[in-house]
């Protein structure tokens, strides 16, 4: 899992990434020294939970991905079946290109999680 996050962090524009449980408990974190793991985990799961509740009411299901764009950076939250991948990127990153790589890593992380929780 750590190796996949290391690979993800080499994607241009990606600042850091982490995997946490659905309830916001960090599992693996490669966020870099400038970012507070606790803070990212707490707020990522808060946003994901709020988005889940809203989407569940609108679409009867949870969103597969939530992309938050802010003026100093972006946060991408990808649902991993029981876990959550959070990726932080620089502001202004071309999200479509980076997102393909992030989705590919998410797929592989999902496979690992499926193997570990039969």
């Amino acid at each position: 899992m750590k190796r996949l996050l290391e690979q993800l962090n080499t994607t241009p524009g990606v600042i850091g990434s982490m995997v946490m449980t659905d309830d916001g408990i960090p599992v693996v974190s490669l966020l870099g020294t400038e970012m507070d793991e606790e803070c990212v985990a707490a707020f990522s799961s808060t946003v994901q939970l709020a988005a889940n509740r809203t989407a569940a009411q609108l679409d009867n299901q949870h969103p597969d991905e939530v992309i938050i764009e802010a003026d100093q950076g972006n946060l991408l939250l990808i649902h991993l079946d029981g876990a959550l991948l959070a990726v932080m990127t620089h502001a202004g990153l071309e999200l479509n290109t980076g997102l393909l790589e992030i989705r590919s890593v998410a797929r592989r992380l999902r496979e690992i999680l499926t193997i570990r929780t039969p």
Partner: protein
Amino acid sequence: MDLFAAGAESRLLQAANRFGDRGQRLAAARLLRAGTIRFHPWPDGELALDQLERTLARESLHTLQLAVESRYSAADAARLSSALERLGDLSGALGWAHAAIEEDPCNPEGYLAIARGYLRRFRRDKDAVAGLQALRYLTKACQLHTGHGDCLRSLAMLLLLLRAPSAAAKVLRPISRATPSDPMVLALEALSAEIPAEDTSNVQELFLRWETGTSPIHRKETTAVIPAPAEFSVWELDGSRTLSACSACADQGQEMIENLSVLAGSLTQATTRMGLGQIARVTARSADGVLIGLAEAGGVIFSHTDRPSLESSLSRWLESDRGRERSR
């Protein structure tokens, strides 16, 4: 004599001291813990509790270290973690708590040890991140062992700090039935008489209210209409997270509006606190729909379509001036 009545701080402190003098220091700590919630903020009580908990931790440290070395168990590691946390060794505390979770992920004690540290920080520093983390770990611990007294007391404590007596009462129900004179139950009863019952069961909404000191007031009669294509539902929330306008076909149910309001508040809070600056846009994609939110003039405008193939049209519509047209 009611130790939790308004103005009874000094009486409660004396009662805790008497427990301490009789060697019943755990009972004294439990009383003070409830008192610090009942009379929050209560610096004298916090100080007395801090001193007592530190003394208890110092005295038990050696025994706990021996226990961990001789018969390593998740419960021993969690107890050592709690003692170290009280003595200020935060990295040691976190290390042992994680060791407890690794040793037995289904034992609530490791999660509870971490939660207690966060809860203390939340109470002392009014740190929202600590509060959210305390909630996560307490929820986990409560899920693993429903009816665990310390988990329930800590969760109720957090809810009372968020001024949610109804939610706290629900959490404490098993304890109040079994031990109605439990200090936390008495503190809850006293607080319930003073704090009006909360009108939401959404704990994220409670956190937002606690942090901003305000709550949104949605009124259908003051909600403007946004003309929008039939396949798009649109809602506009102002800076206080109150619904100010929506499209004719948008769901205006209380739960829907509260969910959007919480999402708007959480996004604003999250990007700022994570160092990402001001929220500009959010996109949530599921197999059966897309929700896009755009931040503007202190508020957020959300739009949804249940046809993912229309995401680009939705985005274009939202970014055009049409998303801001209203008729009252």
